């Protein structure tokens, strides 16, 4: 363990050894996040389930039972319409929270990100790991929500998957877009502002994300129909609608895939440059 031998090793770091070093560090970061997520599993699942559970319970179980109905039109039940939307909003809410909440603390108050930043891999890879892991977490959240929105309603829910690759593609892209958005938020907000950020960004995003109606139905309010196009959840909801409930009006796959890819590129750029700015003085 003399310093002499260390010098020799370091200055002759072969490309393969370097790739292995990065891969192991990345894997270590994933193990760390898995351990933390396991420890917080109960809290995470409560955070994930409560909103869609109560929403479906009140609007798709209680409402029909007591004879208070939504006008859904076209013979499609409201319960069917909200399935993709609620899954989408679970994904985006969890993706944002999984990154933004810890990151804001770790940057602003505790600086505990420090040790992970000192791991032997490029700093941007630390950010990428966080996004990839949180995207997976967000996808799981979407899956967890599914049985609730499918089983609780007291009116029929009609879900048909005829294109599995499309569904998987939308899920993965939705997770990645959400956690990249979370990091973009986490690198600009400070701990004192995070409540405000959630109120001003996360809540409007979930309410105006075409969760409770298909985007096409917004036509009578044209300005809103155009305005919500900046909202990533719109494309996630429409994508899931296409994949899960094709009988409901939905966007063309080119539209939502194109928009999600473009948003992902933009948010990823914001997230990574924000992360590097926060971590390197």
């Amino acid at each position, binding site marked *: 363990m003399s310093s002499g031998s260390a010098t020799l090793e370091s200055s002759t770091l072969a490309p393969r050894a370097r790739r292995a070093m990065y891969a192991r*560090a990345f894997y270590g970061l994933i193990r760390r996040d898995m351990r933390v997520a396991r420890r917080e599993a109960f809290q995470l699942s409560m955070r994930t389930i409560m909103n869609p559970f109560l929403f479906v319970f009140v609007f798709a179980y209680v409402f029909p039972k007591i004879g208070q109905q939504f006008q859904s039109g076209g013979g499609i039940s409201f319960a069917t319409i909200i399935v993709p939307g609620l899954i989408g909003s679970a994904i985006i809410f969890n993706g944002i929270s999984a990154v933004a909440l810890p990151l804001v603390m770790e940057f602003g108050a505790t600086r505990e990100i420090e*040790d992970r930043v000192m791991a032997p891999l490029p700093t941007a890879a630390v950010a990428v790991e966080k996004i990839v892991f949180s995207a997976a977490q967000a996808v799981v959240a979407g899956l967890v929500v599914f049985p609730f929105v499918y089983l609780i309603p007291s009116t029929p829910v009609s879900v048909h998957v005829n294109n599995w690759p499309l569904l998987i593609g939308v899920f993965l892209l939705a997770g990645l877009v959400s956690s990249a958005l979370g990091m973009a938020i986490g690198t600009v907000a400070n701990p004192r502002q995070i409540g405000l950020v959630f109120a001003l960004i996360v809540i409007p995003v979930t309410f105006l994300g075409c969760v409770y109606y298909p985007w096409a139905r917004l036509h009578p309010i044209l300005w809103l129909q155009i305005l919500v196009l900046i909202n990533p959840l719109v494309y996630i909801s429409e994508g899931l609608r296409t994949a899960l409930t094709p009988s409901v009006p939905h966007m063309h796959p080119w539209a939502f895939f194109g928009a999600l890819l473009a948003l992902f590129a933009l948010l990823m750029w914001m997230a990574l440059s924000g992360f590097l700015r926060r971590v390197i003085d």
Partner: protein
Amino acid sequence: MEPAGIVIEKLAKMYARRGSEVHALKGIDLEVRGGEIFGLLGPNGAGKTTTVGVCTTRVKATSGRVTVNGIDVRADAPAVKRSIGVVTQFRTLDRSLTIRENLAMHAMYFGLHPKDAWVRADELLADFRLSERAGAFPDELSGGMAQRVQVARAIAHHPSVLFLDEPTAGLDPQSRLALWETIEGMHARGITVFLTTHYMEEAESLCDRVAIIDHGQILVLDTPQALKRSISAETVIELRLEAPNDALVERLRALPGVVSAQASGDAVRVLTASQDGVLPRILAEANSAGLKDMTMTKPTLETVFISLTGRDLRE
């Protein structure tokens, strides 16, 4: 091949925040030799943390070059990170993980197989007398204990260079001594230690060589003994006076055997060489200005700092 250790050449760092510019480092040169304990001593805001930041790839230099074990920190940060251990000035333990997990996860980041990482964590817990608290979370630890965990974590991956930024700040004397022992233990194993401090006792008793930094510039660099010799004084006499005045200071300076005299507040600090009769002559002058109290000490690094800057280290 460049030598082991740290080479800092013409390093400058300017922070630009909201229009104002802070020149934290103004072109410093340092060379830390492989295997030594090197101390960077300086007051608050001198640029110690910035220097460590550049060496550990966390701060981007405005100009200049730093190599650690021959690797340029800017050109290949991951390779530098692999061979260094860092204890920052801030508590940075991962609060979502227990102490044992903090150590094991760190080892995994550095490529240890999970099984070996847990073994390594247990080994460190034992070495640092932390085994009993293995399952505790960082928030549940005392400051001294948390600092021990940070040092244990920093060496978990067997780095060849260890950076410690004010490692004993805020520790009680007992924890401080324990940490000094730990650092000496690393030194004995051949690890290069670069530490910053504003405690001169720490620099003096621990370091092979010390650089004094102030306002982003290195003032001197040498062994503690040589630095103390450099002021060519044997004794530091501090006089507390009713009425210190400039004329008195002038008269003291003129006395044979007096190296320097400097007023600060109601006291005058006089450095003297060993020469018969110097003390009585000083006392005679001081009495005329209402001598209240007098202390005599051997010169320390603090004396060196004061004679270089005219200020106390902790001002």
